[in-house]
């Protein structure tokens, strides 16, 4: 056993020598039919991204000190918006979507005007900043069952989940980001951070659709206080929570319309959300 172990150690050491910066830029990304190339992505990164994300991809670009929230540190390989479980790397498509959409209420713009090829190249280059892209097993996106119909039963069950899972501890009983734990939250780099405030009606960090919302709490926003609830919520139930969360927003959604209609006659039946709601 031991001779083989030594041989393996020698070979992997050689392998590390060979995988210098040149080999790192041989990184590729695959999004749909488009293949991105790290070498081309490096030029694009220097043009578009370096001011905030830094030459070393560590989130310490020249402008980083003036920005809140801080730009993503690619060397840590921890990403908020993924379709993969917590602790796993995002898929190429996850990164592509983040670059395309940008992040509302941050300084990350939507890079949609860049051609899909350019965006894919940038994604390929981003993957060269951390060795984890080479060493980690590829992650599988979570399975999302088809969305059931929106009805009051679903919204009410979602409301129960919101209470039981104690989302209100951070997001507040009405989703205004003012829960008891909201004010002390820090992200994984110890920067202060606030929970999403459903009342603003602004886009979520990771998309706009119900599916995107499903993914947010079923994969967690890694690097932030928002955990994954995948171990605690059955996939079918998760849709109920999605429907309830939509009623907290000030947007015109079918869920909100249905909820307002129901509330007009049944509001008195609801127990409050919060510490008192726990004593049911």
């Amino acid at each position, binding site marked *: 056993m031991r001779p083989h172990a030594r041989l393996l150690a020698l070979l992997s050491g050689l392998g590390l020598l060979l995988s210098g910066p040149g080999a790192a830029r041989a990184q590729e990304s695959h999004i749909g039919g488009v293949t991105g190339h790290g070498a081309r992505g490096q030029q694009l990164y220097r043009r578009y991204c*370096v001011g905030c994300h830094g030459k070393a991809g560590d989130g310490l670009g020249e402008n980083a000190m003036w920005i809140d929230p801080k730009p993503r540190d690619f060397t840590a390989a921890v990403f908020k918006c993924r379709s993969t479980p917590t602790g796993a790397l995002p898929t190429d498509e996850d990164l592509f979507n983040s670059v395309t959409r940008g992040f*509302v209420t941050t300084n990350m713009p939507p890079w949609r005007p860049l051609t899909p090829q350019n965006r894919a190249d940038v994604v390929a280059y981003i993957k060269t900043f951390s060795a984890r892209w080479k060493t980690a097993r590829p992650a599988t996106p979570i399975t999302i069952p088809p969305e059931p119909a929106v009805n009051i039963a679903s919204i009410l069950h979602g409301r129960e989940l919101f209470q039981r899972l104690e989302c209100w501890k951070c997001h507040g009983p009405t989703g205004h980001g003012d829960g008891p734990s909201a004010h002390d939250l820090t992200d994984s780099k110890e920067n202060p951070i606030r929970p999403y405030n459903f009342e603003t009606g602004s886009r979520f960090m990771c998309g706009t659709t119900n599916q995107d919302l499903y993914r947010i709490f079923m994969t967690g926003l890694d690097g932030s206080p928002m955990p994954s609830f995948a171990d605690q919520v059955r996939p079918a139930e998760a849709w109920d929570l999605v429907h309830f969360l939509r009623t907290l927003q000030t947007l015109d959604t079918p869920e909100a319309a249905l909820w307002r209609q129901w509330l007009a006659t049944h509001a008195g039946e609801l127990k409050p959300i919060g510490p008192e709601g726990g004593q049911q």
Partner: protein
Amino acid sequence: MLKSLGRGTRLLLHGCLPAALILSTGAMGPGGTRGRSTTTPESAGSARSLVRAYEASVSHNKRIPAFARKYNLACSACHTVWPELSAFGQSFKDNGYQLGNDRDSPIWQSNTYWPIAMRTTPQWHLESTTHQITDASPGGRTVTQAGFDLSGVDFLLLGTLYKNITFGLVPTLDADGTTGLEAAFVRFDNLGHSPWANVKVGKFELDNLLSEKRFTWLSANGGFLYAYHYLPVGSTNNFGFGDNQIGVELSGHSINSYTRYSVSLLTTDDGEPGVPGGKSMDAMFTLSRAFAMGSGLGPQRFGVFGYLGHRPTAFETSGGNPIPGTGSANKSFVRFGATAQLWLGNLELIPLVSHASDDVALGGGTQKPAWNTALLETHYIATPQLMIQGRYELLRMSKQGDPGIPKTTGNADAIALGVRVYPFLFSRDGLAIHGEFAMTRTIGTVPLSGDGSGVDPVTQTTAVWSRSLLLAFDFAF
């Protein structure tokens, strides 16, 4: 004795030039609208054109370090090489200078942020023009001017007043102290929450796909396009496609600005305030479509444009002097063409073809003057900090206004080569070290740059060569 007089005075003595020519050369500046005055007495016009020739022309381009400061993006995010816009920058501009991440409204900014940026270009340049008639050489000689010089200063104040309400204000200060207002507008963006409806009112640059305000040429002969400024011999028109106009523009774009259109209604008279022209209006449209093909620095874009203009040919007079704003008997002119922006890796190709024709009454003759231009501009953007560029443009008269003029009079060929080096890439300000060589050959007329003596050559078929050599330090903050 004549030699000891100032250049301007010498011209005054030679003041018997056709008024129309003076008016046209006075109105056309190389590439820019540097505070043109409304009424141009003959001599002042020619003096000004000479002064302009002696100064380097600066296309007063919009490149906004203030935006870089506001959004914490490096210049290279919005500009391929500033001042030329990238696809991302075009989309930002189309959206009313809003990034769309809910951080645009002024209320998000620190109240120490002030939306102002400035640009100017100290330089050394050399101008040399052949076949120029001077007092000492009525047969024509080569006139050369060279020295250190200044450009004017652009003050670029653009931003948002409120979410989806954009403003722009661009006062200018010429190197000779003349002030002007190049742009002043307010724009209502995303009407009905749709990017397809935006309304801009005021003085602004026309929605040219190939923008003269944001292009990368600065020399007297290279800093403007014949396609946008040429007017034939004897013309009484004063229109320049590259000049900012006053009016209202309805524009729209797809969410990534790959499809864009604009339709404008403009007050006649080439952006001169005070409504000096007639009661007529000009109209313009542009339409372009981009395709995400290839792996170049941007999408492949194709566009068409058209302009229908009117100029009054009769005015009410008082005591023999025309009363501004009372023009009538409008005569029309058209400009239309097609252009593209193509990318092969880091090589950008910009072809443009256009056709122009003016009404007989505007042409100073008995026929409708018409001419065609074609140009190809190439930029090789090696890195965001190094660009090498070249342009070849040709203009051919297809019909002269005055049938007595030779067919080739007014034809022009223009070539320009340049390099821009940006020693640092930053998000607070920028500096470009700019080298340029431009050469034009015009048949029988002064070059459009106004270089030389400002007097037409001896014969109408003399080929006048005008060369510019420029070394400039173009900075903005």
